């Protein structure tokens, strides 16, 4: 690390102008090679700085191109940590079900009751998957089909009575989850593969931006704990970006890399094609069987119209009891039954995902008719184990409440890191054009009085607003729509999504109007204020439309329900506070230069108030 002779603060104050001046011959020229981000260094004095500069360029543009998409992926992915809770909250009909301890032996009776109810409803069911209720999801959700290879239907049941629960049509938290890895736009998926490819490219760029960012950050250890929100302007934004980036870096690297790895078979099929050559082309079935630690023949290949014999009557109780003994009292996560390739009916018992880090828990196979134990399926090879651990880290099914909130906080910090990075791009450019404008101003005073940012910068500013403020708005509207849309509307789940995308689209139109067409400071505060209002009103809307509001859930100590309402309220207040800080007419106190600057130019590019980044600690 180079040791700076001057006080770091002084350097920070000067940084923006210095960078602009570095290209010009004169006083600062000696500084230029040392500034990694100086725009035009004539000659790199050594390779390291040249490399760093190249990385800086890469970081800037890799970050910018898909940064907005990344922000959306990161934020919805973060919300997905609470997918079960969203699923529950958005189906108030499920209120009153008692969360179950998956270690409770009673689970076996619950499973049997649910299965009986399913068989009564669908006598010739050929396959079913039943995740058992646990402390996060109190209902029994059965996926079933009575075809050979058709779509699964879902049935929700009361764990004690086995009665079907009639819930409203909604995607619930699954929408955030689906959107974050395949950009799902409708309940029945469309363009799923294309969406996964787009997300994959964005994730790859995220990975590039992370690594190049570490290289670019010159003072990574010196500035490790440094955050100076009062310094104002670019310095505060850069500090916020660095702090949110560096402190939680292990999480970002893990989540990005594992995110790429989860879809490795889609992104990099060449390895499978080489190693799993069968007689009839690539035998990817064998590969996936290996990945899951199963025998290749256990999963039959069937066409959608193939006839399959219905399952026989199954006595689950003894099977589940034996599974528990074999696992030394370990928790049972789910049970399923199907016919294997030979036509034999088998029951597969899966251990609870919270019992270990590695994803895809061990499974026990039983003969469905006799209840005889057949086999244990569990991936044991080092490569598959490594993959399973990465997968498990990404899904965080192992996390208890405290850990889950911590990971959620990391996700928010990551979103903030991306957001501050995007804003920084604008701040930097507007600071630069300022210095240039004021230098030109001597020659042409009229021109300097109303500098107008180039179209590209205004466009970036607009999309910044549309994404960074528009997405929280859209999420709030989506959750509100869950309570506001009448229950009997045709295709209700898709109508909710229509609300989501309309709100986002409106935010984009607003942003284009405010940043590109006619720059004004309203750009940020209005959508943020609307988002704050939407989130803060959620508990109110909830109280007006359901019985699962704070008035009943708080006294009853139902923290899963009450916690959601309280978190919505907190989000609303936070967004509202941001909007208030960025309201028009409030002179930014941080940087004198920015305050003196003509309103039009700064307004379009940035919410000049540096204190916004204070929220990093609140996350």
């Amino acid at each position, binding site marked *: 690390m180079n040791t700076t002779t001057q006080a*770091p603060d002084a350097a920070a104050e000067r940084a923006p102008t210095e960078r602009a001046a570095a290209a010009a011959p004169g006083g600062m020229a000696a500084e230029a090679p040392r500034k990694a981000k100086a725009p035009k260094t004539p000659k790199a004095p050594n390779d390291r700085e040249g490399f760093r500069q190249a990385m800086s360029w890469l970081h800037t543009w890799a970050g910018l191109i898909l940064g907005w998409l990344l922000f959306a992926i990161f934020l919805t992915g973060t919300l997905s940590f609470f997918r079960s809770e969203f699923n529950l909250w958005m189906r108030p009909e499920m209120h009153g079900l008692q969360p179950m301890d998956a270690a409770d032996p009673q689970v076996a009776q619950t499973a049997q009751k649910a299965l009986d109810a399913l068989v009564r409803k669908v006598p010739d069911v050929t396959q079913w998957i039943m995740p058992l209720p646990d402390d996060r999801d109190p209902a029994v959700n059965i996926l079933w089909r009575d075809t050979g290879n058709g779509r699964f239907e879902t049935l929700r049941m009361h764990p004690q009575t086995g009665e079907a629960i009639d819930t409203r049509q909604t995607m619930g938290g699954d929408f955030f989850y689906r959107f974050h890895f395949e950009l799902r736009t409708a309940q029945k998926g469309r363009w799923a593969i294309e969406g996964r490819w787009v997300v994959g490219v964005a994730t790859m760029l995220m990975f590039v931006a992370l690594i190049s960012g570490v290289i670019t950050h010159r003072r990574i250890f*010196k500035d*490790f*704990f*440094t*955050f*100076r*929100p009062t310094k104002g302007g670019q310095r505060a934004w850069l500090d916020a970006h660095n*702090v949110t980036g560096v*402190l*939680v870096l*292990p*999480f970002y690297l893990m989540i990005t890399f594992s995110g790429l790895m989860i879809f490795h078979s889609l992104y990099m099929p060449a390895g499978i094609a080489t190693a799993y050559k069968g007689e009839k082309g690539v035998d990817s079935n064998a590969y996936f069987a290996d990945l899951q630690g199963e025998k290749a023949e256990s999963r039959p290949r069937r066409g959608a119209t193939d006839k399959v014999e219905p399952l026989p009557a199954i006595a689950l109780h003894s099977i589940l009891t034996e599974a528990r003994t074999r696992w030394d009292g370990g928790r049972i996560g789910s049970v399923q039954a199907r016919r294997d390739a030979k036509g034999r009916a088998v029951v597969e018992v899966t251990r609870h995902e919270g019992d*270990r*880090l*590695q994803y895809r828990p061990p499974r026990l196979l039983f003969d469905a008719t006799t209840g005889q134990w057949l086999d244990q399926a569990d991936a044991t090879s080092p490569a598959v184990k490594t993959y399973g*651990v990465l997968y498990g*880290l990404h899904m965080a099914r*192992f996390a208890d409440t*405290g*850990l889950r909130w*911590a*990971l959620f*906080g*990391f996700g928010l*910090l990551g979103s903030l890191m991306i957001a501050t990075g995007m804003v920084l791009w604008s701040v930097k450019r507007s600071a630069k054009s300022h210095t240039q404008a004021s230098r030109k101003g001597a020659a042409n005073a009229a021109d300097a009085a109303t500098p107008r940012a180039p179209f590209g910068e205004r466009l970036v500013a607009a999309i910044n607003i549309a994404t960074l403020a528009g997405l929280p708005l859209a999420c709030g509207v989506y959750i509100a729509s869950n309570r506001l849309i009448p229950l009997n509307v045709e295709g209700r789940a898709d109508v909710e999504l229509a609300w989501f995308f309309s709100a986002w689209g409106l935010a984009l139109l607003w942003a284009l109007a405010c940043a590109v067409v006619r720059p004004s400071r309203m750009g940020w505060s209005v959508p943020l204020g609307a988002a704050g209002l939407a989130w803060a009103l959620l508990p109110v809307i909830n109280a007006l439309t359901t019985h699962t509001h704070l008035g009943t859930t708080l006294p009853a100590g139902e923290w899963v329900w009450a916690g959601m309402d309280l978190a919505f309220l907190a989000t609303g207040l936070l967004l509202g506070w941001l909007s208030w800080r960025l309201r028009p007419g409030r002179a930014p106190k941080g940087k004198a230069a920015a305050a003196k600057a003509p309103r039009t130019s700064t307004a379009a590019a940035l919410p000049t108030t540096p204190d916004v980044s204070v929220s*990093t*600690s609140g996350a």
Partner: protein
Amino acid sequence: MSAFLLCFAAWSAMALGMDRHHEDATGREGAARRLQQLRRTGWLLLLLSLWLAAHPAGGVPASLGVTAWAVALSVAAVAVTATVTWQPRRTPVLAGVALVAGLAAWAWGW
């Protein structure tokens, strides 16, 4: 929990071992030797907390313990950054409290 508290103490020691934060916290410049000692203490505390996390009590697999430690590591770093930013004077006291509480929490099996 103990991992978080110990990491907090460790990161605080490291922050206090840096010129700028040492001055913010104590009001005077620290001697180079003292700063180095503080930084070393910080590293040792981090290693200690990792070792403790790798030997969790109550049948929890070590893999989960270490994962929780990695999370605690980042949370503590964020907490220390917040402390040196807004409460620099209280950093040494908080670090001491965190160290004692962390050891107590570990002894209680938290």
